[in-house]
Every structure is written in C-alpha cells, then in structure tokens.
C-alpha cells in the first residue's frame, strides 16, 4: 500500500509546479455570508493526497468536513459560498477553473458518495438508469453498452442478480444495497479521486463493515485517492492512512493514523479519544468528555477556537485566547495547531491522558 505512487503518474498533465500530490488543497476558505453574519465554515485548510492513499477527515458536527469536500467537488451553488485558496487536482486549480471545466471533471476524475443513500438517489428513476446516466455523461456510448456497464458495476459492488436488480427503484433496495449502488454509480467512470462523506453513518454495523471492506477493496483495485469523512474514529482507523482532525473549520491536527491514535498531540484529539467508549480496551469507569459545546462558526472564539473547552489553555500565558495557533510540524509530518510547549504537551499526554485512554 505504500510503494506504488510514482508509477501511476502516467497522465500527460505537466502543469504541476510544486510537489506531485494528486490532490493538493492549499489554504482553502469557504465562507457563507448569511443574515446573521459570515459563517466561516472552512477557514484555512491545507492537505495533500496521493493516488492509492486514503485521507480520513474527522471532527464534530459542523466542523466543516462536508463543506470542504463539496468545495473540492465544486458543488457549492454559485453565489452562495465565497471560496478562496487553491485546490489542485492533478495540477489543475479547481477554484479558479470555470464551472464547466469543473463539471467535466466531476464524476469522471472525482466522484462522491453521500451519507444517506436513500435521499441521495432520485426516487423516480431506476437504480440502473441513474448509473447509466452517470456513465453516459462522460462516455459516448449507446444505451445498451452503458446498461451492460451498469450491470457490471452492480455486480462488482456485490449486488446479487445485478441483471435483474438494475431495473429496481432505490426504495426497493435495502440500506446497504443502496449504498453499494451509490458506490457503483460513483465508480462507474473510474474516478481518480473518491470522496466518501459519512458513507456508513446511516447503516447498521454489520452492513457498515461490509461497505468499509468494499471501499478498501475497490481502492486497491482502482488505485484511486480516497477521502473518507466521518465523525467515527473507528471508521477512519479502519480505512485511513492519514487523518486530519478538524475543529471549527480548521485543522487541529494532521498526521498518519498511527500519529493520531498512538501519539495524539492536540488537546481536542485527546478529548475525542477520551469521549469515546472503547470496545477493544478495558472498560473505563468513566468517560472523559470535552466540556462545553462546539462554537458558533459566526463568532469563532478568538485565539485558538478550542480555548473555551480546553483544559490546557491556561498554560500558554494567554496566547490561547489571543493568537490563532498555526498548524506546525512536530516532526515527520505530524502537524499540530496548538500553543502548548513540547514539554507541557508531553507531560499532559503522559500523565493526564494516556493512562486514562
């Protein structure tokens, strides 16, 4: 899973000026002007993703996960969102591209699966027709060919009797089958980037396991780049190579899955891990919740957005309340946005957090 990065660079695109990441998001900002004020849903997010790799984005509800992914896909309605920064997909900046250029990439080079597969499929059209449609936008083929392709895709994602099921309507599928069909639809043009926004949140745990397996298998097969968005740390641990923890529209911490789970550095990540009952460990007597509630994105607290809920904010001589911490490398690409000094951080982790997880 780690080596085949270079050889897949077969696309004739030569526009990449820096780095070779397939997806390169730089300082993305998405703001929504509303009557109550500007909602800063995403406020300076950067990350890179190679083909064949999976990035997990975790964070609480409203932390900007979906907004980030919709920006990459160019799915924010025009005029509603103010987007700045850059999103390079294989060297092409999507933010400055025209809507038509981005549309041509959607479905073909990047595709997305959504949380609720029932509402994400059109209730009036058969599953097959919706997949055929996805294939035909980007491939000039006859209906018969597209239909055959749709049946193949349904078969590939594990739908039994695909030649019959292709004519069923979404409501005739079970939840798991619908999500499989969504995946078939997303993969029908063999995209290089697949974004899965809470793909299993609406599903039962046994079905969730099936879908996660499927996504993992398909990624290996298609060698695509995958972004998986979820609030379930267990799900990211299953799939992700790298993880970005988001809080209030910004990245709090970024690192490999091992970094995040074995040596987390940010108090918010600690909070998430402490809040979560673990089925694989000794049962802790008490969960350690994060106090308070997530901030409003219109009035983000000054300084570190997490400071009203953070147990360590007082250790930084008021810096936590006044200055926004930058996302800085603590070594080996493990990035953390926190003012805590390395000593304080290590001490808090060793004495307060680690023993209780």
């Amino acid at each position, binding site marked *: 899973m780690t080596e085949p990065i270079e050889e897949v660079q077969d696309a004739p695109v030569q526009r990449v000026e820096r780095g070779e990441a397939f997806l390169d998001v730089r300082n993305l900002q998405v703001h929504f002007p509303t009557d109550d004020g500007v909602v800063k849903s995403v406020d300076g997010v950067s990350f890179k993703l190679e083909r064949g790799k999976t990035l997990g984005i975790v964070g*609480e*509800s409203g932390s900007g996960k979906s907004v980030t992914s919709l920006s990459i896909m160019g799915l924010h309605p025009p005029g509603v969102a103010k987007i700045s920064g850059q999103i390079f997909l294989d060297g092409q900046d999507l933010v400055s591209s025209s809507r038509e250029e981005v549309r041509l990439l959607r479905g073909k080079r990047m595709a997305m699966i959504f949380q609720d597969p029932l509402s994400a499929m059109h209730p009036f059209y058969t599953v097959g027709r919706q997949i055929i449609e996805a294939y035909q936008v980007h491939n000039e083929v006859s209906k018969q060919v597209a239909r055959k392709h749709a049946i193949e895709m349904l078969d590939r994602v594990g739908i*039994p009797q695909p030649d019959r099921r292709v004519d069923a309507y979404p409501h005739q599928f*079970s*939840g*798991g*089958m619908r999500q499989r069909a969504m995946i078939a639809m997303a993969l029908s043009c063999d995209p290089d980037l697949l974004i899965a926004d809470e793909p299993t949140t609406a599903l*039962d*745990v*046994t*079905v*969730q*396991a*099936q879908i*996660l*397996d499927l996504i993992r298998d398909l990624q290996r097969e298609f060698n695509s780049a995958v972004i998986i968005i979820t*609030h*379930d*740390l*267990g*799900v*990211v*641990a*299953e799939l992700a190579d790298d993880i970005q923890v988001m809080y209030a529209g910004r990245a709090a911490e970024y690192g490999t*899955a*091992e970094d995040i*789970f*074995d040596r987390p550095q940010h108090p918010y990540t600690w*909070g*998430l*891990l*402490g*809040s*979560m*009952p*673990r*089925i*694989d460990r000794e*049962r*802790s007597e*008490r*969960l*350690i*919740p*994060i*106090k308070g*509630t*997530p901030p409003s994105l219109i009035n983000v607290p000054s300084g570190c957005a997490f400071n009203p809920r953070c147990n360590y904010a007082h250790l930084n001589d008021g810096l936590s309340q006044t200055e926004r911490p930058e996302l800085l490398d603590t070594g080996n690409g493990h990035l953390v946005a926190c003012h805590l000094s390395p000593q304080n951080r290590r001490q808090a982790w060793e004495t307060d957090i680690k023993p209780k997880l």
Partner: protein
Amino acid sequence: MTTADTESTPVVPKIGEEILSVDGLVKHFPIRKGVLQRQVGAVQAVDGLTFNVTRGETLSLVGESGCGKTTTGRLLTRLLAPTSGKIVFEGRDISHLGEGRMRPLRRDVQMIFQDPYGSLNPRHTVGKIVGAPFRLQHVKTEHGVKRAVQELLELVGLSPEHYNRYPHEFSGGQRQRIGIARTLALRPKLIVADEPVSALDVSIQAQVVNLLEDLQEEFDLTYVMIAHDLSVVRHVSDRVAVMYLGKIVELADRVDLYEKPMHPYTVALLSAVPVPDTKRKGKQERIRLQGDVPSPINPPPACRFHTRCWKAQEICKTQEPPLVELKPGHQTACHFPENVEAPAAKADQ
C-alpha cells in the same frame, strides 16, 4: 414472581429485586390490503420476549435497525399495547391496563426519546416543557413548579436561567438534557431510554452518558437502555440483551457477553465494530455477515438468523432454538453456540 403479596402495601425499593418482568411479549402491526382492507399479514416487530429487569441495574437492548428495540421500549412504557404477553411492573400486571389506570404508573416509568429535536415542542419554553409532568400529574411541589424545574435543570447540567428559553436556542446535547430533566421531574423508578445519545457528537455523547450514570447513582434509577452502538452499550450496561428480528437471541452479563459471546449473531456484531486501533487494521480476523437483515413481515422460519449465519445447518431452518441458560446468567438461542465450555453440552439437541 411475586404478585399476590404486593396488592395493597407499597413496595419497599430494594436493590437486586425484580422491578420489571416481561413474559412472552409480542407486538404485531397488521398489514391491510385489498378492496375490503383485509389483514393480509403482520409486521412481527416484537415476537416473544422474556426477560427481567432488576432494580438499580441497566439492561441494554441492542440490535440492528428494525429489530424491534423501539417497539419494545414503547411496550414497556405502555405507549403501545402488546398483542400478547405479559408485562409486570413492581408486581402489577400492566400489560392491558387502560389509559386511566396506567396514569399513576406513568410517574414511575418514563421514556427518553432518541431525537432531541423532535421530542420537544418548539413553541414551549424549557420551563413549560420540564414542568409539564408536574401539571399533568397534579403533583404538589414544595416551593412551586418553577423552583422544582430550576432544580431539575441544574441537576442535568443546565443553568436555571434557561427557564424561559425555547428549545431551538439549545444545542443537541443540551436538548437531550432538557428531555432528561423532563423525564426526571416525577422521580421515576424505571427509565426506558431509546437511543439517548445516538444523535449526539462523540464529545457531547460522553457528557450525556456520564450524566445518566450520575443520575442513576443518585436516584437509584433502573434503566432499560436501547442502543445500537456496541461500545456505548458496553460502557453503560450491567446486562445486555441482543435482539434480532423481534427476538432476543442472547441475554447475558456485560462482561460475559463481550468476552465470550455465544450466539453467532452477537459474535458477528462484535467483530463488525470498527475499532480505533491502527495495529488491528487489516489484520483483524473478521466475521463478515452477508446481506442485510430480512424483513420482519416474513421473517425466516425457525432460527431467524439462519439466512445469514455461517454456522447454519438443516436443523436451524426447521427447528427454532429456544432461549436457554447455557451458563449461569447467560441465555442463548442457538443450536450451535460459540464459546461453550463443555463442547458436548448442546451438540446432541
């Protein structure tokens, strides 16, 4: 069961004694069709549950969507009338009590609902919502309803100043606290909590879980907790009942169930839980169930799990395995259970 001796004298609460017992509980929702709207079938939402709840404990019901957890909860609180079977609360058979005779019991048995948005009337203030049970039940309070409500709000970690605010001004976790405060108003003995934390974020979820635990300790509450998150269930429960398609397939002590699950479904369920541990990634020996849960309208005959069970044999399709106690306090309904200490114990059935 103790039924005769509790008619007149009030029950003295005792930890460890049975507060609720359920016997052969069934709920079928009829399906009607045709010109005359004949009944052509039934959703067998709950189909023969038998279990007891001990005072002071937390019993959890887990299972996949549609297995009948909510229906069970609504039956226990008698928001629904059972098709058949018996529910005995503190020695009184409440399975067919009418609304009038049920009302005094509503003080003792309360329900917390899943949706912290939908279950609060958006046009009522928090004070009115939390105070409603006092008014409905005509309860006299020492210093007036307002004081009582404010005390409740503090108890669940809200500020008394929230009295005059409306539900939409609160976050999901706070709304769930309002719901809990309302539930606590009448000092119930038994609380049926239907997915009380499912709609909440992890960090908030932990706050509410802790709150529920504190309250249980403070007021000797008994919980029937409905949930589908197995990690949360393990954290909160004393005993766990695993449901599949309207039936209990396994009922055991928490430790026993999580460490030595006996029913194949429980085994599969536990192994499907994604674990936030990178060392186990990809390596874990996983049992993957095929397909989805069948419809409760036409559930598979005999063992309802046989269509997805990897251990299924002919007998599973013809003979229903009874829920029997294979170990002290550990009941399982399977012909070929896992983790059996004496391997011969069940094989000849």
